[in-house]
């Protein structure tokens, strides 16, 4: 078996073990995300999983300045032509921390090949004994006594 074949077989095995999204092989639940699947950009802000379009906390599509836009990317304007007010756009780990009362930390991450691109899987860490599932939190990729509260992922543009 060639080297490429070994890697491909290993990745297939990982995917087969994955839980609710590719690359996630443990049972910790997703961080609260306005659309559902916990896809984020490299800074931790929410993206729509289907196409990677940025969304605000209301789930609306937004432009680079976080202003709401329509499906074609046109800025949404009120009848007077003013842009509609932007809603908050919060890092989903911060949303989890705010809703569950802990201080968020981004400690470590791991990588898997998902859908032909390298996916970075990140733990939302905190000094918490409970995870979003409600049961005992795991250590995962968290350090200094912190535990994984919930998980999220960033799809890079690096092909694999």
């Amino acid at each position, binding site marked *: 078996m060639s080297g490429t074949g070994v890697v491909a077989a290993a990745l297939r095995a990982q995917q087969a073990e994955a839980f*609710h999204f590719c690359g996630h092989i443990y049972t910790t639940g997703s961080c609260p995300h306005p*659309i559902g699947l916990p896809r984020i950009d490299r800074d931790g802000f929410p993206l729509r999983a289907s196409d990677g379009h940025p969304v605000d*906390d209301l789930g609306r599509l937004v432009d680079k300045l976080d202003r709401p836009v329509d499906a074609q990317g046109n800025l949404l304007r009120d*009848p007077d032509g003013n842009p*509609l*007010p932007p*809603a*908050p756009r919060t890092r989903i780990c911060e949303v989890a921390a705010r809703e569950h009362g802990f201080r968020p930390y981004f400690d470590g991450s791991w990588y898997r090949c998902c859908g032909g691109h390298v996916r970075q899987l990140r733990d939302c860490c905190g000094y918490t004994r409970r995870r979003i*599932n409600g049961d005992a939190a795991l250590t995962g990729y968290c350090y200094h006594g912190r535990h994984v509260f919930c*998980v999220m992922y960033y799809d890079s543009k690096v092909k694999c």
Partner: protein
Amino acid sequence: MVGTVRAARHRALAGASFTAGLAVGAAAMFGALGLLGALLEPGRWFLIGAAVLAGVAVLADLAGLRVRPQVHFQVPEPWRRTMPLPRALFLYGLLLGTGLMTFVPAAAAWALLPLTVAAGFPGAIAVGLSFAAGRALPVLLMRDETALAERPQGLRALRVLAAASLVLALAAGEARAATRVVLRGGDPSAAGTDLVWQEPGIGGVLLRDGGQTRLPGSDPALGDTRIAWHVGPEVTIANSLNLQPVLQLAIPGVEKLAVSDTWLVYRVGLASGREQLRGFAFADPTHTIAISASQKRGTLGRPSLSADTVLYHVAGPGGSTLFLFDLATGKRIRLRSSTHSQLLNPDRVGSKLLYVRLSRCDQELRLGPLVGNGAGRLLYKLPPLAGQDAGHERGHTSQGEHLPCTRPPKPTSRMLWTTALSGTTAYVTVLRPGSGGAMTPSLLSISR
């Protein structure tokens, strides 16, 4: 039951016990249905189904058709012999108040159950108490129930009465629902029974006594005995009764107006891309008060004015806040704020605050107390502006997924926007998407 009440030594006590039992039983049963409705938030199709069922029940009662299904469980007859009569009557009332024990005399009784779920809480309690009153009155007023049994037309009359009550309840429910005031128009302002709004690209319209009058300007506002509009930078403040101008002045960049007997408040768009809320007293138009300012357009809402107080929102990436600014004292009060939903375009009448709340899972028009943290009463609701995905990727399990809304939302592109409040009616602009990101307004009214 008539005979049992009349047989009691203290007939008034027996009647009161029976009525109290009915009230408690009906409040519990219908209240539970209302709570179920409040928890499940039945959608439009459930409401349509309940209304159709009610219509069928009305027709069945008017036609005198046999009522189906019937409940086989009957109230325990031995109670009237084994316990004090007032206690037995209270328990009988408790069971009969649920509407599901003993003979169901009208199809309307069945149709009332899904309507109660749709009514939600606490409206369902009122439905329950009305039902209890409807069940108690014949028992308390009739002398002999055998008369009813021997004269089917008496029962028929009761069924027609039940059908009429159901029609009235449906009509009342319809009156509570939102009705469209105008298809193309928004930014309402109300005073007494008068209403003004802005027709996009055309100008202001005044609705008075059912008749519409086109105003000679845009962005109209009503307050106390005054009405205001502007044509470009030229602002006119007029007597709202005869539309005769009492003050005219130029305000460069003026966009939105709010007026009262003593103040004019307005939003201006500045060339630098900023916007400001300002105001002045009619007694001294040269002295302008700065209310709020923003570095970006679209952050400050449309102001509303009530006596000396201005209400407005500030919405941005950090969250949204509803403010009250006292023009007389310069004091600012934060009424509501949120970092996870948008609170927009408040208006007030007295101690009541009307505002729009856009959250992840719905859009709401709420009427609540001016001060305090209570979210207030829901007057009107639209689905959220965005849907949600499956929560898990294709080919993966749902274990560990975390979805934002408890029920999958059916998103809408319509958005709740500006509001106005009168003593009896709440108004809200609904924006619909047009071409190129522009939004077209329509105006709804909802009975308070």
